[in-house]
């Protein structure tokens, strides 16, 4: 199916694909930002992160369709629930393993993922859900179909990325987060209570995971395994950007989103998921410190 058919070459410059890629990239970028923040300080790969996204989306869904709250309010509820939820999971589980190796924590996070994902299935069933709102043909601008939801996704993403950037650059606590992500021991030597920072990071990272899940649900559907299946491109973004580097993660997110959407031009659609997988592998194998970022380990 693929090949150098002129039609495909044309399509490569189709701004529609670029716009779609930008939307998908925005979601991956936000999700990758939360993941890399958490990783930066806690130093373990949290497999359950995708399920945090799903939990955020499902709580927003419940607020939106089961309690008929406006989507904005519902999204805030989803964010808050997941911010607190991430902290609760930490207190219940991860905190007890803080002194253990990153590998043990990774396996523990698999257990957490099992629990969260299947609780979702028990509570909300296995089928897919949508936020309320009609489905309408998207208006066209310069030949690009642009949905209001998509615009919202891009705008909200930029707001969250900008807000987080300011938090990390301009506030004492934000700088401390970056400092602790650089080197926890040195942060402690400076008098920074890293356990308290960990609390803030779970709150911020959990909220970001929640909103990322909501944005994903807004663009696609809400499903119990939505986060798990999104995890590979998100990890790929984090790794391309250099683990623990927020700006790199965001850049990686956009790069992967756009690459993924453009990929259908040259490869059969059924291999679209391979893009994230390949980028993850290549990213880890070629430059562990990331293509856009700096080494932290």
């Amino acid at each position, binding site marked *: 199916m693929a090949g150098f058919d002129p039609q495909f070459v044309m399509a490569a410059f189709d701004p529609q694909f670029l716009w779609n890629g930008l939307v998908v990239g925005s979601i991956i970028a936000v999700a990758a930002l939360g993941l890399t923040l958490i990783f930066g300080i806690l130093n373990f790969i949290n497999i359950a992160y995708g399920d945090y996204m799903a939990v955020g989306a499902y709580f927003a869904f419940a607020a939106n369709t089961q309690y008929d709250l406006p989507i904005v309010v519902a999204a805030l509820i989803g964010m808050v629930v997941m911010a607190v939820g991430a902290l609760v999971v930490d207190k219940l589980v991860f905190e007890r393993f803080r002194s253990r190796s990153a590998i043990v924590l990774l396996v523990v996070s698999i257990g957490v993922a099992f629990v969260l994902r299947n609780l979702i299935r028990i509570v909300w069933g296995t089928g897919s859900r949508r936020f309320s709102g009609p489905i309408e043909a998207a208006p066209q601008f310069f030949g690009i179909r642009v949905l209001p939801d998509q615009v919202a996704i891009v705008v909200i993403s930029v707001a969250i990325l900008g807000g987080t950037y300011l938090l990390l650059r301009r506030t*004492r606590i934000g*700088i*401390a987060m*970056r*400092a602790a*992500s*650089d*080197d926890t*021991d*040195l*942060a*402690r*030597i*400076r*008098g*920074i*209570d*890293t356990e308290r920072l960990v609390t803030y990071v779970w709150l911020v990272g959990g909220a970001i995971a929640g909103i990322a899940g909501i944005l994903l649900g807004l663009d696609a559907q809400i499903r119990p395994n939505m986060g798990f299946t999104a995890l590979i491109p998100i990890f790929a973004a984090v790794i391309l950007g250099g683990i623990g*580097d927020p700006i790199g993660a965001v850049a990686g997110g956009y790069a992967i989103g756009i690459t993924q959407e453009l990929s259908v031009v040259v490869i059969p659609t059924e291999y679209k998921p391979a893009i994230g997988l390949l980028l993850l592998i290549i990213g880890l194998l070629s430059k562990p410190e990331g293509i856009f970022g*700096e080494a*932290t380990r």
Partner: protein
Amino acid sequence: MSLLEVSNVESGYGDVLVLHGVDLTVEDGEMVSVIGPNGAGKSTLLKTVAGLLEARTGTVEFAGEDITDTPAEEIIYHGICYVPQTTNIFGNLTVIENLKMGAWALEDAAFEDRVERVYERFPVLEDRPNQRAETMSGGQQQMLAMGAALMLDPDLLILDEPSAGLAPRLIDDVFEKIRDINDSGTAVLMVEQNARRALREADRGVVLELGQDRFEGTGEELLDSEEIAELYLGS
């Protein structure tokens, strides 16, 4: 009463004990160098004092207070600032951010004043407040590490191999700064690979071997001792 008093401390990593009962004192305003072969436990000793490692037995007292089990994040509030050998700056942070973190324990209002004083001592930092720390040269990084540690104006500055990996000309600079800091009243406890140099600078030297303090004396005494010269100074 000494400023720092380490008594019979045992410490180590996991199952491995590195320090087997070490005694050490630092007086007010004194500069003390700890020397000894690789694996003698020099860094372990500093980490134990700084609260990054727990002392299994023994006590650490500072200014009359028992700080033996005080965790690392609280040590600084007692007036001790520790500059580790590796990663002693936050590489991803800018110079000014590193200094801000150095002043974490401080009220915001006092920051401007302190940063001015650090700039005076390390003018190289004033030129590049927004440079990412890890893009600076090794010597500049060492200056930043010390500068950040001095933000709180500590009573005791602990330095782990401040000259490691630096070119000879830069080593002179670093020791000059340390001398300077000590002269302005801050006590210094320093571990050095470069034993001769360290003993020359220090008021007093302590030789550590196999996790125990073997010799102690003024810098000159140790430098003059044939036994020490043969064993540890590689003459």
